[in-house]
């Protein structure tokens, strides 16, 4: 349904951030983009959602297609109406609105008001805690509750594709599992396709179908989640696993050398 074809993204006409990214999301899939800070993961999401333009970024080469329609260069409003909602990173809320008002803002683009009420119940079904907090000013929610709220707000737009940016950021491991479990259920039960950006590779690879690894604005590795979990480089750099019981040479410990070769 979403096809990103070899895009280059430039900020302020000079800073080349994405150097030819291609990826695909099929109907009903969960896809992860993994990578370190500054790899270009968030930029990729913003290129899809159109938010790039608010930051003086521009897709200069390649194309982004959604169900066969070319959407690069569209405004964020048009893209949301098409069914792509980005949940931006850092749990950004309308802090002075209540929990329920935040959710309703997520549904403001929609015309079918009866369905909005139904979706509100759906969000409360996935995140029962939000229902208890519905009248509370959202700025005072805890970090986990805020993350639930931003995902819920994304759902209220009734997207066919949700772009989730780092839902695990700054959350306790147990909460991360809880959030990812709900993300998996939303995908399975509502059929929402999800493009997930994560640094927490372990949590992400447990729920996704397919993953892309980005470094320095390029995709350096991609494959089905099981394959990535078994990949030696992923194990070492992203899951923090090394082969146990073997002696390691100090040359190998300087893994940036291997990384350099990897990027070649």
């Amino acid at each position: 349904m979403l096809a990103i074809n070899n895009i280059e993204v430039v900020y302020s006409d000079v800073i080349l951030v994405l150097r030819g990214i291609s990826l695909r999301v099929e109907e009903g899939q969960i896809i992860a983009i993994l990578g370190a800070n500054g790899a270009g993961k968030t930029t990729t999401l913003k290129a899809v959602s159109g938010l790039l333009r608010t930051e003086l970024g521009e897709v200069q080469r390649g194309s982004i297609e959604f169900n066969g329609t070319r959407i690069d260069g569209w405004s964020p409003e048009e893209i949301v109406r098409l069914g792509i909602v980005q949940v931006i990173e850092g749990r950004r809320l309308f802090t002075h609105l209540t929990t329920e008002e935040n959710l309703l803002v997520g549904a403001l683009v929609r015309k079918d008001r009866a369905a909005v009420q139904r979706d509100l119940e759906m969000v409360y079904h996935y995140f029962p805690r939000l229902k208890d907090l519905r009248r509370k000013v959202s700025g005072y929610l805890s970090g986990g509750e805020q993350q639930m709220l931003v995902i819920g707000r994304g759902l209220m737009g009734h997207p066919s594709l949700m772009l989730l940016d780092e839902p695990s950021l700054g959350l306790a491991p147990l909460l991360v599992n809880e959030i990812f479990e709900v993300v998996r259920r939303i995908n399975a039960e509502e059929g929402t396709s999800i493009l997930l950006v994560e640094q927490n590779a372990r949590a992400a690879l447990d729920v996704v179908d397919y993953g892309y690894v980005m470094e320095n604005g390029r995709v350096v590795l991609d494959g089905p989640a099981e394959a990535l979990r078994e990949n030696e480089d992923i194990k070492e750099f992203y899951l923090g696993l090394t082969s146990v019981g073997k002696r390691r040479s100090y040359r190998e410990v300087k893994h940036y050398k291997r990384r350099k070769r990897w990027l070649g």
Partner: protein
Amino acid sequence: MADLVLFGKPLFLAVQWLLTGLLVGSMYSLVALGLVVIYKASSVFNFSHGWLMLVGGLLCWAFFQDQGWPLWVSILAAFAVAVILGLLIERVTLRPLIGQPVLTTIMMTLALAQLLQGIVMLVWGANPHPLPIFADAAGLPMPPLKLPTAGFLGGDIILKVQLLWSFVVTALGFGALTLFFRFTRTGLSMRAAAEDHQLAQSVGLPVRRIFGLAWAIAAIVAAAAGIVQGAGTGLDPIAVPTMALRAFPAVLLGGLESIPGAIVGGLTIGVVETMTSGYISTSAGQELAPFLVLMLVLIIKPDGLFGQKRIERI
């Protein structure tokens, strides 16, 4: 009974000043409402608001006095033109400045103020234009309202009718805006856009159109204030904007984003002004007191009484 005294002035006069202060303050509240609507939506502090008032009032004058249209038609027509003017101002002068530093937008609204003043001078001249809404058939002003309080306050309280009207208009405007922001989808989208533009865009809100809408609403509020002001003291191209300037302390006192704050701030400034005028002198009340309050607010409570505090979780 004449010996009822409060701080050296007759008690009935003090009470009259208090009531007049509330009524005068409602005028400031009305001006403050217009400022708050724009600031809430787009974080632009509109220094040209006083001139928008003037233009709105003069438009009504032109339709009512010059063209001889019925009063209601004139008022609605003035509102309609004001909306177009508001949308135009937003589209032409402020939209290109989205993302620019605050100072740029401030300078732009100051430039707009001068521009509007120039237009007023060109079209209507520098003379005050009275808007005789509160006049009887012979064109004489309505007699003031007299409250029979001589029995227990030592004197009758006298209130100007047009000030009572400004109070009514402010109350209507306040009620309408409160309901609008709380219960309508458009109101909710405006509150959301006010908080975080990028976030609002990410959920698909047409942020630019929302800014335009805020200007349209503020232009109506300004025109209403201008008409009320014109009916009271006439539309003077110097006095009306000066009066709007005294609403700035009201906005800051109440809090820039708060509609109830605009009301409370306006009433407070009104009372401070008339009390100071009564006890000391009119010039002290009008020229000095509001701005002393403004300075105190900025020093002690820069967010204002009802302003949005930045919510920071620790």
